[in-house]
């Protein structure tokens, strides 16, 4: 409305002039037109450096002064945004609504606006002149409207055209300058944003990310396009994506600033912790127009926090495990700190302010004086404390604690202690148990006469237990080496010891052997059992036990001797010795008889006959005959010897005893013996030793027969049965078998098939069995070998104690 007074004045001037000077009017009109055009072309100088709106307004101001119009309208197209519309109402009759009507009439698209048009609005009709700015109006459009029928005149059109051209150039320039400035500002802004040491970003109100600074993109190793929108969330740690997103959604919904922590994957795959901060920017209507945010790298902080947390946890755990609490104490100020475990050890609730009294309260009355003394020393002289004492807990239990306090203060009058209090109850109990089990072990070793040793093979370091020292006759606790050991080993067994030691050194098996020692003038039998242990450091240790088995060995030797004597007695006495003795005893008088008889004959055949001598020799012949007879009686008595002890006996038991005596022989011959003993077997009456001789004789024959042949199946079967009121003992073997069909001859005296046999055993056996009223027989085993058996009558009334018939 600023142009209204000028417009009025210019029109008055024009009316006055028109009637007065007609001639000059054409010239004047031309001159005025020239001036108008000049004033318009002068506008760009004013516009230089101005903005688009300033240019528009100045243009409209100038035109309103020049043209006789009711309104002017300048529409400027901007790049991308809504167009600017500048209006200038030049008369009181028009209003804003007229312009709106104009736009409605002409349509929104400037390019479609015609060069000239007419517009009816209310009672008036307006003539319009339009000029486009730029090619096809791409910069804008200038419209002038007037109710004058003459509008637009040629001059009006010219002025408008020039003005439009001038404005187009100026506005274009202004646009360019504005864009340059914007680009520079954007560049500057980006530079700053990229330079700040945090990740910066922005999103649209709904969270769609539209900007990331260079730092962010470099970290992610993504392009802006990849990260845009929700693309960046692929770099979130899978564990953190959910929580972060839920926080982000809350912020978006509430429209308030907030933060959250999450891990982001760096371009090289490493995750680091970041603090995400989001700040909303609000529009005039209070709604969020944009979110701006930063991500700050807090990984180092997180890691330190994590490590602190972990070490605190480890510390607590360590204290818990070792039952050791930490203590800090400054006596001058009475400040005391206890770790949680210290409270537990002392049995006070965690968190109560600790005092010296609290500790002394728990102290065992007997230990109180010494503890008080230490505490006093600590307070007065800053002396370190290191002592073990007992606590009495509220439940009456006794605890052993080890308290260590170290003065770390620099001022002697103001000591500052750090230390530890450890619950050593279990250790104390374990020590006590260990001591007790040590005592038990050494007692056990002493009772079992077993000592233990350790031999480090590479270094020959040897350790003996106390009992082993005793066995070797070494003083307790002395140094043991092989020289000393060798001195104690029985001379004959030294090669054995050398062999066994060499075995161990060469990585042989666990040693297990018997060896003799000679200790204090006495032979000791010991058994050595070792275990070879390979240590991780590659060394070898032989750990073992040595048992003094002297008593056992002596008993064994005595038993073996007795057994061999028994077996020998049964074997040799009944066979060869008896044969030799029969031969000797009988042949002696026999040769006397023959010699005397011969002498007698010779004396009688002499001339003259020596009758006196012959009588003497004949007398001696009779005497020798009697002597021979005595020998036979003696032999019979020999067989009869045991029959004096006749008793009811169990043949099975007698057989088991014999098998016991023969066990070694069976083992040596690798012979399996199967006993099928009938149970029950009625008792028989007889001489146990004699019958056992028979059984042993039969078994020994079988063993010898088996050893002679290379039989794959070496087995002997002994069985007992009851048949026809008799007990039968049968021995079956798979040996060389019977070499004669006449089995009766086997039992004849001096019949033998053995290279060293006397042919006596079976004959004596028959004598014994027949003396007991039984039978003995032999037969061939159908499956190879021989079967020998004998039968004895069963003791019916159990009271048959009369002597058995003499053997024939």
């Amino acid at each position, binding site marked *: 409305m600023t142009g209204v007074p000028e417009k009025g004045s210019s029109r008055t001037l024009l009316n006055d002039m028109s009637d007065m000077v007609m001639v000059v009017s054409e010239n004047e009109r031309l001159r005025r037109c020239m001036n108008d055009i000049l004033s318009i072309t002068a506008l760009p100088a004013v516009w230089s450096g101005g903005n688009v709106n300033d240019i528009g307004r100045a243009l409209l101001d100038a035109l309103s002064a020049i043209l006789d119009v009711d309104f002017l309208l300048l529409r400027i197209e901007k790049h991308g945004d809504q167009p600017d519309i500048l209006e200038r109402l030049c008369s009181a009759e028009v209003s804003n609504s007229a312009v709106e009507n104009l736009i409605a009439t002409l349509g929104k698209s400037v390019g479609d606006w015609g060069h000239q048009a007419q517009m009816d609005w209310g009672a008036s009709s307006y003539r319009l002149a339009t000029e486009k700015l730029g090619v096809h109006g791409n910069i804008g459009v200038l419209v002038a409207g007037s109710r004058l029928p003459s509008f637009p005149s040629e001059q009006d059109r010219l002025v408008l055209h020039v003005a439009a051209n001038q404005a187009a150039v100026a506005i274009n320039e202004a646009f360019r300058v504005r864009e340059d400035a914007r680009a520079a500002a954007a560049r500057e802004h980006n530079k700053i944003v990229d330079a700040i040491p945090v990740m910066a970003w922005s999103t649209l109100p709904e969270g769609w990310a539209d900007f990331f600074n260079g730092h962010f993109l470099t970290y992610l190793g993504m392009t802006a396009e990849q990260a845009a929108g929700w693309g960046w969330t692929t770099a979130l740690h899978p564990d953190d994506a959910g929580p972060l997103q839920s926080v982000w959604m809350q912020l978006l919904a509430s429209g308030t600033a907030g933060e959250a922590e999450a891990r982001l994957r760096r371009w090289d795959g490493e995750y680091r912790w970041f603090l995400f901060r989001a700040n909303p920017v609000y529009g005039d209507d209070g709604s969020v127009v944009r979110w701006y945010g930063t991500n700050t790298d807090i990984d180092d902080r997180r890691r330190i926090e994590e490590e602190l947390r972990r070490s605190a946890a480890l510390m607590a755990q360590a204290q818990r495990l070792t039952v050791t609490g930490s203590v800090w104490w400054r006596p001058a100020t009475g400040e005391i700190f206890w770790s949680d475990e210290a409270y537990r050890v002392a049995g006070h609730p965690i968190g109560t302010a600790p005092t010296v009294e609290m500790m002394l309260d728990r102290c065992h009355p007997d230990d109180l004086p010494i503890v008080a003394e230490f505490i006093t020393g600590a307070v007065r002289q800053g002396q370190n404390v290191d002592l073990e004492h007992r606590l009495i807990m509220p439940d009456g239990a006794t605890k052993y604690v080890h308290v260590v306090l170290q003065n770390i203060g620099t001022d002697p009058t103001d000591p500052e202690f750090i230390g530890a209090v450890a619950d050593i109850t279990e250790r104390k109990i374990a020590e006590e148990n260990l001591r007790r089990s040590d005592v038990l072990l050494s007692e056990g070793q002493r009772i079992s006469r077993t000592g233990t040793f350790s031999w480090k093979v590479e270094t020959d370091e040897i350790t003996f237990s106390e009992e082993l020292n005793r066995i070797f006759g070494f003083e307790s606790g002395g140094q043991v080496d092989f020289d000393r050991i060798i001195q104690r080993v029985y001379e004959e067994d030294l090669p054995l010891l050398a062999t066994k030691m060499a075995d161990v050194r060469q990585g042989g098996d666990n040693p297990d052997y018997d060896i003799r020692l000679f200790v204090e003038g006495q032979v000791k039998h010991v058994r050595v059992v070792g275990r070879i242990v390979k240590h991780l450091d590659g060394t070898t240790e032989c750990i073992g036990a040595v048992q003094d088995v002297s008593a056992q060995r002596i008993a064994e030797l005595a038993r073996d001797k007795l057994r061999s004597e028994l077996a020998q007695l049964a074997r040799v006495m009944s066979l060869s010795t008896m044969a030799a003795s029969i031969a000797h005893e009988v042949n002696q008088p026999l*040769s006397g008889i023959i010699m005397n008889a011969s002498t007698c004959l010779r004396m009688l055949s002499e001339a003259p006959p020596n009758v006196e001598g012959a009588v003497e020799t004949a007398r*001696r012949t009779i005497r020798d005959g009697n002597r021979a007879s005595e020998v036979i009686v003696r032999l019979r008595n020999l067989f009869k010897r045991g029959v004096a002890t006749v008793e009811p006996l169990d043949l099975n038991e007698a057989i088991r005893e014999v098998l016991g005596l023969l066990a070694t022989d069976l083992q040596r011959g690798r012979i399996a013996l199967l006993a099928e003993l009938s149970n029950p077997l009625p008792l028989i009456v007889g001489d146990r030793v004699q019958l056992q001789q028979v059984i042993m004789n039969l078994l020994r024959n079988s063993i010898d027969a088996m050893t002679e042949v290379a039989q794959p199946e070496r087995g002997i079967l002994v069985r007992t049965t009851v048949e026809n009121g008799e007990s039968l003992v049968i021995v079956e073997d798979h040996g060389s078998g019977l070499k004669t069909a006449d089995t009766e001859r086997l039992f004849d005296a001096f019949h033998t098939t053995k290279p060293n046999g006397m042919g006596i055993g079976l004959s004596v056996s028959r004598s014994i069995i027949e003396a007991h009223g039984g039978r003995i027989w032999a037969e061939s085993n159908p499956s190879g070998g021989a079967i020998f058996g004998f039968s004895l009558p069963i003791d019916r009334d159990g009271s048959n104690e009369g002597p058995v018939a003499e053997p024939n």
Partner: protein
Amino acid sequence: MTDKSKLVAVVDDDESVREALPDLLRAFGVQVEAFTSASSFLGSPAYSLADCLVLDVAMPEMSGPELQQELKKRGRNIPIIFITAIRDEDIRKRLMREGAVDCLTKPFSDDELHEALRAAKVTKT
């Protein structure tokens, strides 16, 4: 028929042999002296005088074969006729190898004895 100058020593621990054998030997016409043990023979004059020795194999203390070895060691070469109650071919062979004239197993006949004496060159027939 007999050479009275020959002396035969009998060593045997068995009494009946010491009684019977000298009579039989005398019947063959030789002088006889009997001893109960090897040591009593070694300590008697017969040790150096005897022309023949009739010796029991099995005796207490020094046995017959041991006496044989002892005589050999002393260089006393004297024909020996062994007599034994136990028949053992091994022992017999060993004694013969060691230089015995004969080894008779008791009981033996007078002919066997006479044959042995002939081999010992104390009787001629």
